[in-house]
């Protein structure tokens, strides 16, 4: 079988398998709309907050009205004590409590130490940081104003007050690449690559397993298997992976308006390399599993460990070294970093050198493994 005939026969087999054509063609588009859904709003908004106002002064009411204007939270009623609200916080019904203590306005005017307290819940850290960050910033503003009013009453010169009121911030935290700190922009850019890998590994391994069960296909159908047929099959599978990757980094990122296109030429080249690696691994797994359904059973549960092992969520610096080493065997580990750097961060080819070398080594490893596994299965079953 020649290269081109193997390529064409593999593409045809993938499209004709009524069960697997869904995986090869439909699954990635379906996931591309479904998976980003929770993150479509991009920024934490409307999380419920309870106010415990023990002061009931114009100042405390002013605080409540300012908080109700903060987009990330919504005032979800009030409570008469922290203990009462704490129960709702513990059971996850609310996201935070704002406590204005008794005599707050009086103490603030006198300069007696007092504090507005914001409670978040560490049971949901992302939400906790959003609540403490946004509510804290608003309250800090109130505190500065109150302090200014007090020193003005005490006779501080107006010019000095004006100067301090007009002074810019002492610190600016400026996000790079993901300029709006969009949560979806961060999660989906990474998980998109994982989705393509997982769906395609299942599809390819399942088709190769089916061929092996039935002794058909370009790999197990013919009495002889040449290198050109093996490479043709690999390229055909890689074509599906490549198109799925382009669909994600082109269409999906554009559709959801995520940061994209930083180094499109580089991303194209890296997509080709990644596609060949995933296709090789798919063939190797399929030949090993030798079963149509096994790939689904094995790979379904690997998605969550794989995305965390890539180091995009929890940093590599904090993970045990053996896990980081193990992670380098998974295409998504260099894949997610490589694509995020090329697409979102606009890295040059030399700046993704570690990811390129890792991926190239994996291609070599899995291509050899695929060739060996197919050869071994042919000798075992087709002889």
């Amino acid at each position, binding site marked *: 079988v020649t290269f081109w005939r193997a390529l064409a026969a593999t593409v045809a087999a993938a499209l004709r398998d009524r*069960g697997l054509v869904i*995986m090869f063609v439909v699954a990635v588009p379906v996931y591309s709309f479904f*998976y980003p859904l929770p*993150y*479509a709003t991009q920024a*934490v*908004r409307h*999380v419920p907050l309870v106010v415990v106002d023990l002061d009931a002064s114009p100042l405390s009411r002013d605080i409540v009205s300012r908080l109700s204007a903060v987009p990330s939270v*919504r005032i979800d009623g009030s409570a008469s004590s922290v203990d009462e609200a704490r129960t709702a*916080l*513990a*059971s*996850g019904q609310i*996201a935070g409590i704002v406590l204005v203590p008794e005599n707050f306005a009086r103490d*603030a005017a006198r*300069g007696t*130490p*007092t504090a*507005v*307290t*914001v*409670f*978040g819940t*560490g*049971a949901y*850290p*992302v939400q906790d940081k959003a609540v*403490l960050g946004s509510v804290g910033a608003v309250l800090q503003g109130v*505190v500065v104003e*109150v302090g200014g009013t*007090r020193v003005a009453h005490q006779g501080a010169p107006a010019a000095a007050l004006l*100067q*301090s009121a007009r002074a810019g911030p*002492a*610190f*600016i*935290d400026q*996000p790079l690449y993901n300029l709006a*700190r969009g*949560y979806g*922009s*961060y*999660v989906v850019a990474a998980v998109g690559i994982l989705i393509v890998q997982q769906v395609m590994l299942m599809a390819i391994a399942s088709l190769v397993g089916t061929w092996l069960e039935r002794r058909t296909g370009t790999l197990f159908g013919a009495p002889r298997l040449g290198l050109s047929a093996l490479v043709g099959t690999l390229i055909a599978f890689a074509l599906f992976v490549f198109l799925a990757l382009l669909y994600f980094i082109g269409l999906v990122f554009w559709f959801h308006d995520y940061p994209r296109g930083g180094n499109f030429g580089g991303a194209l080249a890296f997509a080709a390399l990644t596609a060949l690696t995933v296709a090789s691994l798919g063939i190797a797994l399929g030949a090993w599993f030798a079963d149509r*359904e*096994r790939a*689904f059973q*094995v790979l*379904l*549960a690997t998605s*969550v460990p794989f995305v*965390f092992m890539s180091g995009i969520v*929890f940093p590599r*610096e*904090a993970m*045990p070294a053996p896990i980081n080493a193990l992670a380098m065997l998974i295409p998504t580990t260099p894949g997610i970093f490589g694509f*995020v*750097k090329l697409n979102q961060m606009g*890295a*040059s080819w030399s*700046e993704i050198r570690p990811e390129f070398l890792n991926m190239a080594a994996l291609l070599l490893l899995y291509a050899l493994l695929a060739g060996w596994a197919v050869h071994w299965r042919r000798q075992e079953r087709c002889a």
Partner: protein
Amino acid sequence: LAAALSVAMATPATPGLRAVLARELHYLRREPWDLALLLWFPMASLLLLLWMFSTGIPTGLPIAVVDEDHSVASRELVRRMAATRGVAIALQAPSLEAAQPAVRSGRVYGVVHIPANWERDGLRHTPQPVVLYDNAQFSLVAGIVGGDVRAAVGSMGLDSALASEAHFGGGLAQAALRLGGVQVDLRTLFNPSLSYEAYFAGMLLPVALHLFCVIAAVSALGREFRNRSVDAWLHAAGGSLPRALLGKLAPLAAVYLLLAMAVVATFAGWRGWPAAGSLGLWMAAIAMLMIVSIAIAILLVGLTINLRTALSLTGIYVATGLAFSGFSYPRAAMGEAAQWWGGLLPYTHYLPLQQGQWLGAAPASAWAQGMAPLLLFIAVPLLVGLPLLGRAVRQPARWGGR
């Protein structure tokens, strides 16, 4: 386990519950892949996830510093940043342009820029800001780096404000009191140190177990249809489908209930986060999640009568469940469609039960309210799935679907 297997194997195969059980155990002993999917694979994954987050809190995250001020104060700021727990200064670059490639190549997670004349302008009351450029594609890391750099800059500002206030007399203590006045106190209740081990491992282990349990149960049921072995399966049970299901799923339920208890014991015992609420209620909730997983598997196989399709649906319905559950991005912040879909997933309802009983000391009444929907995730799948399975086992023409 080997002993249990051999005892069960020794049982003579007169039709009944024990015969189904013996048939199932015999199959698992003969098929190492299925045993691995049931037992070894989940156990290895749980250990891997546990190990992954065992450091708890990331430290020493590399950042770059561009100090264009070269003053005593700027060097002090650099020293204070280096002294924080979260960040480590990996690079001192002469300019922002020189630092950019280090960010793009992933060597550092951000660049702190201290502008020229920063100290002088601060003393003249026309302060210039210190700017942290952080890589927001790494959201969690950017949050840690941002917090620590902000704290270091803030401590410098506080010190200089204190020093200038002290000029008005009364020494530093009086100055601190005058400046103190009104404060904003930000506190995190429940897991106050924001340990990422409690956060990620605590949430991922139960969801991994839930997913593994659905996969194992779907596989156990689905393979009878795939292999066209429904007759032999029902025959072992004396023709009763409930008995056939019970015998087939009992070993699986035992394994996953044990693993679930092991997960609770790991966190509450070994890793040292005792339940702030009730350990028993937490255990009941996670046990319920395992039963829910089996009920969902019965529904998925009943709907499809096809192992591969049932597994694909498991991928859509269960494997993506984490994203919709509010474990990271809060549910209240999601759009309506995502909230609605999240409500149809059992893990979404399990999560607040666990966090409430484990970390939050939620009352039993809140637990009971949360358990009610989980019961629905058992009742509804069984009410729909069992009749579908009952019909399919009598229709040999539908068996063997791949």
